[in-house]
């Protein structure tokens, strides 16, 4: 098993799929000659040439549209957004074309396309470059939404995403590209729609994804020191949601805390909370709590940013509260 950074795991996935299927190509800003803003696509231009690693102008609506057209014509594009913040410019293409053309054409067109890039707050990028887009892209049918937090998941899920015939929104994280982890050798595919227990436990279910995973695992460690066992579930796919994994855990623990990068109003956290409430109502011993951003535009100042982004300490507070531990 190789130890890889997430950026390397993603690169391996793209490389393997490009080698496996010549219809797969990469398009985006600085993906070629600059080797990618975060070096995910490093070396791919040299290996596959300009026809399959396409540098674009700064024009997200345009190259997202080019990708969608290419997918309709039978190719399998990987559209890189330098960050998902810029996908806002291409939102109409994704919402109205990528997500809907398969149905509008009565299945004459499939849209095997991956939109990938970093999502959510990184570090001191201020409000316009710290958006968390789960709530937007999970908020309509016609796309699948993936969010990865480990190198193994990054590789296995990106390969599955590239092979999927539906538009996939694939979230990564700027602050996690260097995170290292073991990745299984050989063909490594992880099915879309399956959550994973990242830390087994019995006292409190902590549901998380993306950047939330590190916070949740740190909080679980703190809780363990107090004798409180947490089961940390990484959703990995946000749409469709793996209800079964969450429900099985909450039935066992009777408590649920959500830890994630994102805002509290509506969205993916609220969706999970709603499902747990409905599917596990008679198993809940405490209200479901959510640890996420404060309901504020992300501040630029570092000290204030720390107050808005969830911390292990804040997650621990919620874990104690649902377990009725007083401090």
């Amino acid at each position, binding site marked *: 098993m190789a130890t890889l950074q997430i950026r390397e795991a993603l690169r391996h996935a793209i490389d393997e799929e490009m080698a496996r299927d010549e219809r797969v190509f990469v398009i985006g800003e600085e993906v070629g000659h600059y080797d990618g803003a975060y070096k995910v696509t490093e070396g791919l231009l040299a290996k596959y040439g300009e026809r399959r690693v396409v540098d674009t102008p700064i024009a997200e609506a345009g190259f997202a549209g080019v990708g969608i057209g290419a997918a309709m014509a039978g190719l399998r594009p990987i559209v890189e957004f330098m960050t998902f913040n810029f996908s806002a410019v291409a939102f109409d293409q994704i919402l109205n074309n990528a997500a809907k053309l398969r149905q509008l054409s009565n299945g004459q067109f499939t849209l095997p396309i991956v939109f990938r890039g970093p999502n959510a707050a990184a570090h001191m990028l201020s409000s316009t470059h710290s958006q968390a887009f789960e709530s937007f892209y999970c908020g309509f049918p016609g796309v699948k939404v993936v969010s990865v937090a480990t190198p193994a998941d990054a590789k296995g899920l990106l390969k599955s995403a590239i092979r999927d015939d539906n538009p996939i929104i694939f979230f990564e994280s700027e602050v996690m590209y260097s995170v290292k982890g073991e990745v299984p050798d050989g063909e490594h595919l992880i099915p879309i729609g399956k959550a994973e227990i990242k830390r087994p436990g019995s006292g409190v279910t902590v549901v998380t994804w993306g950047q939330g995973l590190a916070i949740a695992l740190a909080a679980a460690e703190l809780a363990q020191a107090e004798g409180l066992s947490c089961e940390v579930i990484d959703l990995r796919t946000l749409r469709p949601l793996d209800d079964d994994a969450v429900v099985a855990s909450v039935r066992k623990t*009777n408590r649920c805390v959500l830890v994630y990068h994102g805002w509290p109003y509506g969205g993916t956290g609220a969706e999970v909370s709603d499902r747990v409430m409905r599917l596990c109502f*008679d198993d*809940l011993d405490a*209200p479901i709590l*959510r640890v996420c951003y404060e*309901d504020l*535009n992300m501040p630029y100042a570092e000290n204030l940013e720390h107050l*808005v982004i969830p911390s292990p300490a804040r997650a621990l507070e919620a874990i104690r509260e649902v377990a009725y531990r*007083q401090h």
Partner: protein
Amino acid sequence: MATVVQLPRLSDTMEEGVIAKWHIAPGDKVKRGQLIAEIETDKATMEFESFDAGTVLELVAPEGKTLPIGAPIAVIGSPGEDAKVALRAETGGPAVAPTPPHVPVSVGAPTPAQAPPLAMRSPAVDPSPVAHPATAMRDDGRIPASPLARRLAREHDLPLSEITGSGPRGRVIKTDVELVIAGRGPAAAASAAVDTPLQLSQMRKAIARRMSQANAEIPHFYLTIAINMGRAIALRDELAQAEIKISYNDLVVMGCARALRQHPELNAYWNGETIVRRGTVAIGVAVAVDDGLVVPVVRNADAIGLREIAVAVKDLGTRARERRLAPPEMTGSTFTVSNLGMFGVEEFSAVVNPGEAAILAVGAITQDAVVEDGKLAVGHRMRVTLSCDHRVTDGASGARFLATLRGLLEHPLRLLA
């Protein structure tokens, strides 16, 4: 979220208190354990130290005013929080959109669309060492409990009202139910040596109300007589051999019904102004059930036979214990029989039910040394005590009724006449 400070119970007998002196003012910062007020109780003036830390948002209770235990006296929270919101939440008022969380950021932009509260910050668990009542019933009578606790209680047939909630604001949670299931709930409460007021069932409330009324309004007198049950026992045994099952109580019910026909002055009640004679004889039979007693009624008991009485009493008793009686089946009795003989009680006196003139308290049949025809013998005695409403009847009338009843039970064939 701000915490509403309530008037604490500072002595066992304290029911209300007065803030003698406040040691804090709105805007003050308060630490846990800080002296915040002097409170005058029924016994003494005591110092009250804060269970909470924060800023005093409001002093709700003025000095000198008498307040019940639990009354809100102050609100402690973060600067800028609205004390009214906390007070409304505490008193179960209409849900109010909470103020946005106070965040120490001075943003030029307007506050973003306000999110619903996430309850991310703990509503401070009441750290009061004062015992919670058995349940933290809200004004609307609903007991706060987690869905899981409700399900567990339902599955184990445990009323939530009998489970002490240890969660925030007295919420009953899983561990509370599990303690009771494990049989350690009440024991735990006892070991903590706390008095726990219970939530009353409607039946308990009705019993308390009616018996208080009866004891306050009805001038009781009591007459006790011993009845030789030898022949009644022989009759019952004979019927049992014929596979006709009757109880001694059935004989008593029948005897009372027949005796009332002869003594209608006891088949009556005081309506506040005068005596009302009843047109029919309906014997109420007290039946012990969980948490109280009910009195189903055998109607026209003076006109039906022993077997019909036995069947009726058995059916009513069974359904009473299963709580399946309809209200009309428990109203309209003109006389009541209460029997504690099965518990070994030899003699007791009962409280007259309002709406009746008398009640017969029936003791156990005991083997006694008796003198019969100048010789000592072993006899079977049953002591009965008639409690009477002195407004309706007098000692001699009650005595004559008892004599008739004794004659019927000592010579049970007369019941056929």
